[in-house]
């Protein structure tokens, strides 16, 4: 019975944290895009728009959910549900910290420890296309149908380079279990270069990391591969006919997919919770310095506020003191084995999420034929070549 109880609590916690992260990923995306385009972004709901996700949620929840008369109601309603369920599912196999001890129990952040974790991720992301495909088809609208047709072709095509890019680092790691994959990347070459998949191993997997990230953009329908919802050609693509919570479900599914795929990239290529340089050279102090620096900066700006009449006068000191209060937590010996690895994992995954947004603010959209040609004539052969070379080197070095 204990097992079921612990699992239920973990599931609820993971779902809440992931949904909150999705909501704030939207805020971060809007802020970063705004600053790339030299505008302030959401500003008025809460300090610096921090309560904007909450306002959006209330707006979407209270809006009327319209089911147009020309749609197939069963498939129209099940599609967003399918999308969000599959989007939130695949996070369960990601481990966030090494095991630690709480009240005599060995626990670790992360829901399950599947032996076939990598295959599970591939399976769920392969099913993810159904939400979009069915939604677009059931809407009975030519733009939606075009969007879902594009999406099914695109996702099937980009799954191949994605899977081949995942396979290459696994050749030397010899496991499909994420915890073992992360454990295999522990340590430092020459005492300073981390033993992550992209740096170390028989063949540094930097190429397959780039292939993986490129294919991940296509899998999550993000710019420059957001053809299924290309608003300049297809109105809004597959979710043209959707409104209120059904639209929000598609939206959440997209952000949940981005967060999951960034966690997968972190665990597979960037060494999971292992730090960038050895703790002997003070890598444990990074979160302390970052938090304390952010806190001091906020306090400084609270004193020398640029705009006197905004929320900043109250919110800056509060957040500054909060950050300053959080910083020493990373120095407490009891909490250290949990917080430091968790910090590194979140930092790497968060950086990748930032890269996703950065690229969206930088690159234009591909044309559809360019997208397909890129997948089949460039990315796929490159992934095969990379896998072959890695396999050859692993075989020759007698691993």
């Amino acid at each position, binding site marked *: 019975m204990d097992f079921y109880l612990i699992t239920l609590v973990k599931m609820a916690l993971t779902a809440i944290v992931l949904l909150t992260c999705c909501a704030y990923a939207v805020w971060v995306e809007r802020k970063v895009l705004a600053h790339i385009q030299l505008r302030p972004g959401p500003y008025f709901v809460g300090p610096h728009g921090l309560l904007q996700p909450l306002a959006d949620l209330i707006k979407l929840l209270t809006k009327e959910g319209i089911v147009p008369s020309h749609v197939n109601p069963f498939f129209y309603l099940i599609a967003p549900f399918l999308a969000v369920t599959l989007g939130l599912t695949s996070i369960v196999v990601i481990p966030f910290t090494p095991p630690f001890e709480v009240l005599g129990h060995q626990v670790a952040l992360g829901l399950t420890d599947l032996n076939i974790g990598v*295959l599970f991720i591939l399976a769920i*992301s392969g099913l993810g*296309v159904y939400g979009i495909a*069915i939604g677009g088809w059931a809407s009975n609208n030519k733009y939606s149908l075009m969007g879902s047709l594009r999406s*099914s072709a695109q996702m*099937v095509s980009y799954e191949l380079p994605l899977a081949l890019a995942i396979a290459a680092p696994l050749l030397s790691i010899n496991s499909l279990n994420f915890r073992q994959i992360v454990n295999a990347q522990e340590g430092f070459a020459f005492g300073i270069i981390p033993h992550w998949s992209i740096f170390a191993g028989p063949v540094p997997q930097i190429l397959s990391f780039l292939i993986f990230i490129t294919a991940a953009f296509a899998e999550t329908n993000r710019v420059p591969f957001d053809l299924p919802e290309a608003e300049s050609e297809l109105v809004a693509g597959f979710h043209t006919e959707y409104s209120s919570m059904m639209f929000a479900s598609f939206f959440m599914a997209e952000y949940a997919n981005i967060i999951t795929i960034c966690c997968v990239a972190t665990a597979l290529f960037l060494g999971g919770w292992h730090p960038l340089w050895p703790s002997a050279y003070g890598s444990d102090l990074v979160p302390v310095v970052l938090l304390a620096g952010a806190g001091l900066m906020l306090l400084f700006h609270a004193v020398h506020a640029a705009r006197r009449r905004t929320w900043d006068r109250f919110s800056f000191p509060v957040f500054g003191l909060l950050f300053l209060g959080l910083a020493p937590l990373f120095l407490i010996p009891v909490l250290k084995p949990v917080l430091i690895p968790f910090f590194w994992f979140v930092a790497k995954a968060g950086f990748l999420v930032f890269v996703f947004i950065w690229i969206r603010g930088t690159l234009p959209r591909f044309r559809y034929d360019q997208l397909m040609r890129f997948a089949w004539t460039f990315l796929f052969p490159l992934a095969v070549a990379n896998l072959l070379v890695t396999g050859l080197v692993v075989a020759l070095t007698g691993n």
Partner: protein
Amino acid sequence: MDALLFLVFAAIAVGCAINLVLQTHPISSALSLVGVMGSLAVLYLLLGGEFLAAVQLIVYAGAIMVLFTFVIMLLNAGAEKKPSRKVLSTAVALPLLFTLAGIGAYFAATQTPSADVVKFGAFTAGPLEIGRALFTRYLLPFEVTSVLILIAILGAIVLARKEI
């Protein structure tokens, strides 16, 4: 727990399979088939076929069935208009099929020792075991299937050209 899981997912599989046959619209049939495949993947897990369960979802549900839905959407196939077949052929076919099912079930029930139960965890065919067998004993069939896939790709390209 094992029995409960089996019954639930067997019921889903049979329900989806019957729905596949009864639905007139191909896309409903396709999604029912995805339901069958998903529940079969859970049954594979119960039988210890970890790798096959994942491959079932990746290859069957995630690629083959996506291709089916793609083609159905591309052709904009509507529901079947006429009643399926003449009454006579249905009247002949259904009893024969039920007889076939009865014979199969009878042999399945009597020819296997009733002491044989499926114990979850008694046997696992993970990626390691599958890979070892695939690249040693079954190497030749494995290579032959790669040729088969190559031929299938060529065939699909030739068929999909405009001139035919």
